[in-house]
């Protein structure tokens, strides 16, 4: 069994207690900063509204992640096979990666049409999440041990055999590290895109966040933030588990 470190749990509880105590002592208005107890109450009260919204956002993030994994690996494979393509297109990929996603968002929304917010959100999330997958997969594919490469040549391995038995296993740990980064980014991408799309059409969690902000329901905003953080953590935990399985 893994031993659970109680130090961070105790520290968290202490901070929550301090937060609760200070907001009560100084009588801070809940609109500015609600105490944890109010946030907990909002979570329970608004749960029926927030949880389905969280489901939508999580679903979009997972879809974007899946597309990013497939697309990133595919492009990496093509780049690894055709170095000329990597040399000529690589710099432009970097430009796209370096451009802030918020700045691209309105354009993508125009192109996909305002009536297709789901598609726009997926495209935007994939744009941010695909790069860590691409770069890590490419690094992994290039990390093939030259000695093993020679052995595969000696035994006249086909390119399929080479891919399945040599390149993929070599790249797997690299790819997994990239996927972990991509998971966080796909969630960020979805949330940012939902903000920019600014419609309730998809009914995601960031829409609820904006809505609560407009109504000055600060406790509900915190509850939504809490759920977002929880989703990020859950994604990370699942990937860490997969990583452990593969490394074992």
């Amino acid at each position, binding site marked *: 069994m893994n031993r659970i470190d109680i130090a961070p749990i105790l520290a968290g509880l202490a901070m929550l207690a301090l937060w609760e105590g200070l907001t009560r002592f100084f009588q801070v208005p809940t609109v500015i900063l609600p105490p944890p107890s109010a946030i907990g109450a909002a979570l329970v009260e608004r749960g029926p509204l927030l949880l389905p919204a969280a489901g939508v956002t999580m679903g979009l993030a997972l879809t974007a992640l899946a597309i990013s994994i497939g697309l990133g690996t595919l492009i990496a494979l093509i780049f690894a096979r055709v170095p000329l393509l990597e040399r000529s297109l690589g710099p432009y990929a970097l430009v796209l990666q370096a451009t802030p996603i918020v700045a691209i968002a309105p354009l993508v929304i125009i192109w996909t049409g305002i009536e297709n917010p789901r598609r726009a959100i997926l495209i935007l999330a994939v744009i941010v999440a695909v790069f860590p997958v691409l770069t890590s997969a490419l690094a992994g594919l290039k990390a093939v041990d030259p000695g093993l490469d020679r052995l595969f040549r*000696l*035994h006249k*391995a086909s390119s399929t055999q080479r891919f399945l038995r040599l390149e993929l296993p070599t790249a797997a740990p690299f790819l997994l590290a990239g996927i972990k980064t991509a998971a966080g980014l796909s969630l960020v991408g979805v949330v940012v895109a939902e903000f920019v799309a600014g419609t309730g059409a998809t009914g995601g969690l960031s829409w609820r966040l904006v809505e609560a902000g407009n109504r000055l329901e600060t406790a509900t905003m915190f509850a939504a933030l809490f759920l977002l953080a929880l989703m990020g953590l859950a994604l990370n935990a699942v990937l860490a588990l997969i990583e452990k399985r593969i490394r074992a």
Partner: protein
Amino acid sequence: MPTDPPIRLSAQQACVRFGTLEALGPIDLSVRAGECVVLLGPSGCGKSTLLAALAGLQAVASGAVQADAAGGSDIPGVVFQEPNLMNWATAQDNVALPLALAGVDKVERLGRAQKALKQVGLATFSAAYPRTLSGGMRMRVALARALVNEPSALLLDEPFAAIDELGRRALDDLVLGAKRDQNLAVLFVTHSVDEAVYLADRILVLSPRPGRIMAEIAVPHVPRDPAFLTSPAFAEAAAAARRVLSAQLVAA
């Protein structure tokens, strides 16, 4: 009169060039079934290049090289300087790799891999991952992998250089055992004179680049045991090899 055993490895006037650099040759060489020929020579003289050419991994610029099958696999067993194991696969899966690449079905290849592991004394380590094995054990796995598809020739490129004296002797004995039991033609590259004499039926001393055969030293057919290491025959062959190598140093 018994006829000579068939030739399994041969080179005829083989030359290798890297760009304008003459790396090797011309070289003539033949290794018969059941014979161990050791290539001895200074660093960079093209020993490894000759081995790679015989394995089909390096094209020759002129002349020819050949590795002949005898019913078994036409791909020779090769052991490189490093074990080159897949660290994500068990010892058994590593050994089974040549069979997997040849399309042998799983049950059969795992059975044959297990047999090869037993041959190198690692029968109980089939489920072990490379990182849990010592350097000598990893080399044994590499040797088992080279033997698993029952090749008719075995090529070894300074395989045991990084291994301690005793472990090395044990590995040398495994090579000699495989040569005898499977009637293998063995071509062994080393820079250790003692290892060369212990293993070889014939030692070929190569010149500095481009490597050519400078001398051939026959080693007497006596049992390879600890007594051989301290015998006059061993000392004589080792001295002969050292004389040729020193003459090169003087000439260079």
